[in-house]
C-alpha cells in the first residue's frame, strides 16, 4: 500500500511539476497524473480494506468522532472564509495606493448599476493580475456589477463584435451601450464609464477663424485632448467661425475662446455681447501680447486684463525651455466651486500667463480670483521674456503681490444669470500640459461651473506612476554583505556549534 502511495505521489509531483515548469499540459504530465491518480486510488482501496478488517464495532465510534471533528473543522473554515469574503475587508499596502479608487470613479460606478465588465486576457500576460484586482475593486463599489473573464483566443466573435485587439482589454456594457478600454488605468476607466453614462451637458461653441487653438489637433500644441474630455463629460462641441457670425445660435450654452491671435470682427464681438447679456456663458483663455477684442468684453464685465506677463520668482527655476519665473505653479486658490479640491497639494501649471484686475460693474456681481500666483509675483511689460529660454528675468521694481491668473464672474441682470471664466493662459489646457498636475480639473471644472453644471465638478483620477527610482547599487551591495550574508553566516555557525556539541556530548 505504502509503495503504491509513494509511487502515486511521485508521479503526481512530476506530472504537475512538468506542467508548472513548461506551462504546457502534454503527454508526460497527463500520463504521470493518470498513473499517479490510479496508484493513489489503489492505495486508498487497500487502506480501506485494511481498516475494515482491523476495525471492529468498538472502533466505529472512534472513527466517526474523528471524522466528525474533521467535518466540523471544514465547515468552520469554509463558513469563516465565506464570512470574510462577504465582509470584504481589504487593505491596500501598495506604495502608490493603486487599488484605492479615486472618489470620482467611485461616484461614477455608483451611478451605473447593473454594469457588465468583461476582461479579455492571454493567460501569459503578466498585466492581467493587476487588472483583475482593479476590476474586483470596481465590482466592490458598484451595484449588481457582473464580471466575466475570457481567454482571448476562445472568443474570436466577441473580439470582432467589440473591436478588441489585444489582451488586457476591458469591455464595459450597460443596456445597449458599450465601451472598450485597451490599457486599463483608473483614468481610462473613468472616461469610458462617463461615456457610458451618456450625460447631455449642453452645447459648447468653440470660436474659430482668428488663429485660436485648434480643438481638432492632437499634437502637443493642439487642444484635441480638451475637446475629447469635454465630449466625454457630455458636451457637444461645435465650431463657430467668427468671420461669419452675426448671432450666436440660441441652443449654444457656452462659448469657448482659446487664445484668438488676431482681432475678432466687431460684428462677432457684438454677437458675443448679446449672447452674454441673454445669459450665455463664456470661457476665455487669453495670451499675453494679443488684443483680440475679447479683453474689451471681459473688461466690460469687470475682468480687466493688462497686457503684461506674470513673473513668479517663487517657481523661478527654469526648466531650460522658458525664462525663469515665466511658468508659475499655482497653489493659491480662492474658495469657489471651480477650485473644489484644489489646494497647496493640488497645483496647476501655467506658462506665459497674463493677469487680471477685478472691478465689479455692479454691487451684486460676484467676481473671484479663483487661482493666483504666489505673493512674490510681479508683472513684466517686456513680452520678450517669453522667448528667453533659461535666462533670469530682472525685477523691474514692480510691486510683488498675488496675481490672479484665473478669474470667475457671476452676474445677475433682470433675473438673467451670466457666468464668465477668464484664464490668462491657454497653453495650460493644450495637449502638452492638459494632464500636467491638476490643469485638466481646473479647466473642466471651470467649464462645468460656467455651464451651471456644478454637480459635475470634481477631481478626476490621476495616473499613478509606479516606483521607478533606483536603489543605489553600492547601498544594495553593502546591505547584502552587512545583513543578507551575515545573518545566514551567523545561523550556520550557531548550527555548526550545536552539531559539534551534540556529537561530543
Amino acid at each position, binding site marked *: 500500500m505504502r509503495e503504491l502511495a509513494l509511487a502515486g505521489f511521485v508521479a503526481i509531483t512530476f506530472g504537475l511539476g512538468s506542467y508548472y515548469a513548461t506551462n504546457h499540459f502534454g503527454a508526460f504530465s497527463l500520463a504521470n497524473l493518470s498513473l499517479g491518480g490510479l496508484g493513489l486510488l489503489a492505495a486508498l482501496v487497500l487502506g480501506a480494506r485494511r481498516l475494515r478488517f482491523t476495525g471492529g464495532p468498538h472502533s466505529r465510534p472512534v472513527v466517526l468522532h474523528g471524522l466528525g471533528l474533521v467535518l466540523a473543522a471544514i465547515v468552520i473554515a469554509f463558513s469563516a472564509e465565506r464570512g470574510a*469574503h462577504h465582509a470584504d475587508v481589504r487593505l491596500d499596502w501598495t*506604495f502608490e495606493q493603486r487599488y484605492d479608487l479615486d472618489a470620482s470613479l467611485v461616484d461614477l460606478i455608483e451611478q451605473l448599476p447593473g454594469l457588465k465588465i468583461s476582461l479579455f486576457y492571454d493567460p501569459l500576460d503578466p*498585466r492581467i493580475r493587476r487588472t483583475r484586482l482593479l476590476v474586483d475593486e470596481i465590482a466592490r463599489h458598484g451595484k449588481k456589477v457582473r464580471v466575466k473573464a475570457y481567454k482571448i483566443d476562445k472568443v474570436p466573435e466577441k473580439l470582432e463584435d467589440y473591436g478588441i485587439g489585444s489582451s488586457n482589454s476591458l469591455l464595459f456594457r450597460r443596456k445597449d451601450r458599450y465601451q472598450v478600454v485597451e490599457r486599463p488605468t483608473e483614468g481610462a476607466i473613468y472616461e469610458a464609464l462617463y461615456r457610458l453614462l451618456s450625460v447631455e451637458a449642453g452645447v459648447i461653441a468653440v470660436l474659430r477663424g482668428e488663429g485660436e487653438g485648434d480643438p481638432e489637433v492632437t499634437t502637443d500644441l493642439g487642444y484635441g485632448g480638451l475637446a475629447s474630455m469635454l465630449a466625454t463629460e457630455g458636451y457637444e462641441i461645435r465650431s463657430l467661425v467668427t468671420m461669419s457670425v452675426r448671432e450666436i445660435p440660441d441652443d449654444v450654452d457656452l462659448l469657448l475662446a482659446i487664445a484668438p491671435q488676431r482681432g475678432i470682427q466687431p460684428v462677432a464681438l457684438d454677437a458675443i455681447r448679446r449672447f452674454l447679456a441673454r445669459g450665455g456663458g463664456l470661457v476665455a483663455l487669453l495670451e499675453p501680447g494679443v488684443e483680440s477684442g475679447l479683453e474689451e468684453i471681459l473688461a466690460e464685465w469687470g475682468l480687466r486684463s493688462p497686457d503684461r506677463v506674470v513673473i513668479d520668482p517663487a517657481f523661478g527655476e527654469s526648466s531650460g525651455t522658458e525664462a525663469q519665473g515665466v511658468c508659475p505653479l499655482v497653489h493659491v486658490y480662492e474658495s469657489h466651486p471651480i477650485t473644489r479640491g484644489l489646494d497647496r497639494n493640488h497645483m496647476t501649471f501655467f506658462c506665459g500667463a497674463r493677469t487680471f484686475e477685478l472691478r465689479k460693474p455692479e454691487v451684486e456681481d460676484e467676481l473671484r480670483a479663483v487661482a493666483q500666483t504666489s505673493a512674490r509675483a510681479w508683472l513684466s511689460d517686456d513680452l520678450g521674456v517669453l522667448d528667453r529660454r533659461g535666462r533670469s528675468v530682472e525685477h523691474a521694481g514692480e510691486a510683488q503681490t498675488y496675481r490672479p491668473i484665473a478669474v470667475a464672474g457671476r452676474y445677475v441682470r433682470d433675473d438673467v444669470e451670466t457666468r464668465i471664466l477668464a484664464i490668462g493662459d491657454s497653453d495650460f489646457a493644450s495637449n502638452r500640459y492638459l494632464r500636467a498636475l491638476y490643469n485638466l480639473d481646473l479647466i473642466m471644472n471651470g467649464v462645468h461651473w460656467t455651464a451651471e453644471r456644478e454637480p459635475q465638478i470634481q477631481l478626476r483620477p490621476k495616473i499613478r506612476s509606479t516606483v521607478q527610482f533606483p536603489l543605489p547599487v553600492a547601498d544594495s551591495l553593502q546591505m547584502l554583505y552587512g545583513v543578507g550574508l551575515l545573518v545566514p553566516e551567523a545561523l550556520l555557525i550557531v548550527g555548526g556549534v550545536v552539531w559539534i556539541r551534540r556529537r561530543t556530548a
Partner: protein
Amino acid sequence: MTALMALIRKEFASLFGSPTAYLTLTMVALVTALIFFDHLRLYNQILFVYASSNMGGFESDTIPDYINLWDAVFFPVMETLGLTLVGAVPLLTMRVFAEERARGTDELLVSTHLTPGQIVLAKFAVTFLFVTLMMSVSFVYPAIAIERGGLGAQHLSAVYLGLTLHGIGLAAIGLVCSAFTSSQLVAAVSGWAIAFVLWDFGWIQPFVSESMARALDSIALHPRYGSFSEGIVSLENVVYFAGLALVGMAIARFSFDMRRVSG
C-alpha cells in the same frame, strides 16, 4: 495546560537542538538574500540603461511602466520564494509525526495525560512558529534594503505576510502527510504532491466547467497568496490560510484515531 507547554518546550528544544533547523534557516535566508539582491541589481541595471542620458534621464517618460520595484523585484521574488517554500516546507515537516511513529514514541505521548488534540496542537504550533521565524529571518535583508531606499516597505510587508501564511498553509499540508505515515520519505513526497495539486488548478481548467474551475481556483494556494504580492491584504485570504491550518490540525488529529483503530 502545563503539559501542553511542556510539550511545546520539548518540541522547540528538539528542533533547535539539532543542526537541521539552523541549516533550514540558513538556506532560506541565503536563498532569499541572493534572489532579492539579484533582482534588485537587474532592476537597477535596466533602469539605468533606460535612464541613460541619450534616452532622456529619470525625469522623462522614457522608462516603460513595467520597469518598477513592484514588477521587477517584489513579484518575481515572491513567486520564486513561494515555490522554494513548496520544496522546503515538506522537508521540514516530514519528521514531526513520522519520526515519532517510526520510533514508537508517539505511543508514549498518547499514554501521558495529553489528549491527541493537544499533541497535534503543540506540534502544529511549534512548526508554525518555526515557519514564521524562517520568514522573519529572510525578511531582514530585503526590509533593510527597501527601507534604505525609502520606498515600498509596507508593500514588502504585505509580500512577507503572504509568504508566511503560504508557509503556514504548506506546513499544515506537510504535517497532515507526516501524521499518516511512519516513513519520512512518504511524508515529504506526499507533501510535495498535495502542495503541487493545491498550488494552482490552471492545469485542470481545460477539462472542467467554468463554475468548477472557479470553485477550484478558490481553494488553490497560488491565487490566494499571489494577491499579497500585489500589496493587497484581504481578510478573506488570511482566513483561508487559517482555515487550512485548522482543517490540517483536525485531519492530523484524526490520524491518532485511525492509529487506535488500525493498530
